[in-house]
């Protein structure tokens, strides 16, 4: 992340209020290609609101979002998807009674005259999962039979296959066992390594330090700091989150 490089995603002075509550009070942040950016902050800091605005689920009251040098005043979810911005939902994204391949290719099936090319889809699904190092032995297994990590892997593989450029993970390892969570973290790191932009929201600071390249600290509706993970100590981040230190 050369600082001279243009960010893939840039927000400028995003404001958003719900009735009398100011959730975001001028958020400006950047995310670069090939990095894993962790957004941290206490409950109510505005992380979720920001994420929803980035994925087009919410419209900001004011401010600018710039993606790949194109400027948006508010993003619709359709536009966000077209730009390759997706939030990875662990549980809402998959059809449990359908197999991994169907889930992977959902909406982009390989067909000839409307007939599914199942064999080719299975082969390509296999390749895609192997490329991403996602451990699913059988692509004809039903999504409902997969573990949490495998499910998330399937959801990610679909987004990558669909040309995703910025993937957002909201607490990606919540309710997961240690092995599971490690697999997901490995996948997230890999995605960053392959030139995608990854944003992750997490409460788990050791995890954040383990996988992120940069950390963006939010407090009371503002981004108070963007830090390079390798130049930062965990205590420092904790102080910023809790508001003990808010140095500029």
């Amino acid at each position, binding site marked *: 992340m050369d600082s001279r490089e243009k960010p893939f995603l840039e927000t400028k002075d995003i404001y958003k209020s719900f009735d009398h509550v100011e959730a975001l009070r001028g958020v400006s942040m950047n995310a670069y290609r090939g990095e894993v950016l962790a957004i941290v902050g206490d409950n109510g800091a505005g992380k979720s609101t920001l994420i929803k605005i980035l994925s087009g689920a919410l419209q900001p009251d004011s401010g600018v979002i710039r993606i790949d040098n194109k400027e948006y005043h508010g993003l619709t979810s359709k536009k966000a998807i077209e730009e390759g911005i997706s939030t990875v939902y662990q549980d809402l994204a998959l059809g449990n*009674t359908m197999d991994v391949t169907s889930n992977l290719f*959902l909406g982009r099936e390989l067909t000839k005259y409307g007939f599914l090319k199942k064999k080719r889809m299975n082969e390509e699904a296999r390749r895609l999962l192997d490329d991403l190092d996602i451990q699913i032995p059988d692509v004809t297994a039903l999504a409902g039979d997969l573990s949490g990590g495998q499910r998330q892997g399937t959801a990610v593989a679909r987004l990558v296959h669909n040309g995703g450029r910025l993937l957002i993970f909201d607490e990606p390892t919540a309710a997961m066992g240690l092995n599971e969570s490690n697999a997901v973290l490995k996948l997230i790191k890999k995605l960053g390594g392959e030139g995608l932009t990854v944003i992750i929201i997490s409460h788990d600071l050791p995890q954040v330090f383990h996988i992120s390249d940069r950390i963006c600290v939010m407090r009371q509706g503002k981004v108070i700091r963007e830090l390079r993970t390798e130049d930062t100590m965990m205590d420092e981040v904790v102080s910023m989150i809790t508001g003990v230190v808010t140095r500029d």
Partner: protein
Amino acid sequence: MKAKRLPDYSYTLILLGVLILVAGVLAAASPFFLTWKNLRNILNQSAIYLVISVGMTLVISAGQIDLSVGAVIGFAGMIMGMMLQSGMPAGAAVVTGLLISLVIGMINGMIIAYGRVNSFIVTLSTMTVMRGIILILTNSSSIFGFGKVFAFIGSGKVGAVNIPIIISLVIAALGAILLHKTRFGNYCLFIGSNEIALNRCGVDVKKYKVMIFSLCGLCAGIAGMIVTARLNSAEPLAGQGYEMDAIAAVILGGTSMQGGKGSMAGTVIACFILNILKNGLTLLSISSHYQGILTGMILLVSVLISESRQRKKSEV
């Protein structure tokens, strides 16, 4: 480690075993059962149910229900009957009747998809509305006397096989290909599995729902054509209660009531099981009044089996 999943066809194989078992018991109980004449009779009787069950399989796979198929049978029959009686050619009557059935299905689908209403209520309403219209337009009496060309659809034969048998088997084969081999079928199942995910992936779920109900309407129209041609008469109450038989066949066949899982082969086998049982009751001189009880009980048991399979799955 998770329990090993049985292959999808294992339930269908069990069903096939049940079919053979039932046939065996009936063959032992009645010497007439295994005659070609009787078997042909069963296939011929099954034809109507098979055709509507194919459409119903698509609908239930998508987690929906269509209670209006019986009424569409009556409605399509009435349209064809009225046109034939007014002297129109059989081809025109059939095409118009089928198109109207398709449109009724389309209307069901549009109200369900765009009005975001539960399919149970929508099709229950359209069923009642159609039954009313039929009684008004026919003055509650039969329309009959249609000439040979139309009657051939119901009672004609190619070689030793009745036309309705051929129609129903072709439709079942097409239905199986549609559900299991095409993108359309995949989306049917996915609507039943996770509609929101499908929508998020940019698939026009509403359009597909309309198409699914349209096809179900068309199937009911074809069944209406067969019923009317076979009797050579359009009865105002034709098809009444047939939706129950179709739903029973589909659920017994292993299609999940919640959607997301469907088997056309299962539907076909289950349909034959139900009709063989009915035929057996007739051969054994048991009153036809028991047939309704039997269908109802089988539906109940199938739903119980289906639900317990579903639960087992979610407990794994």
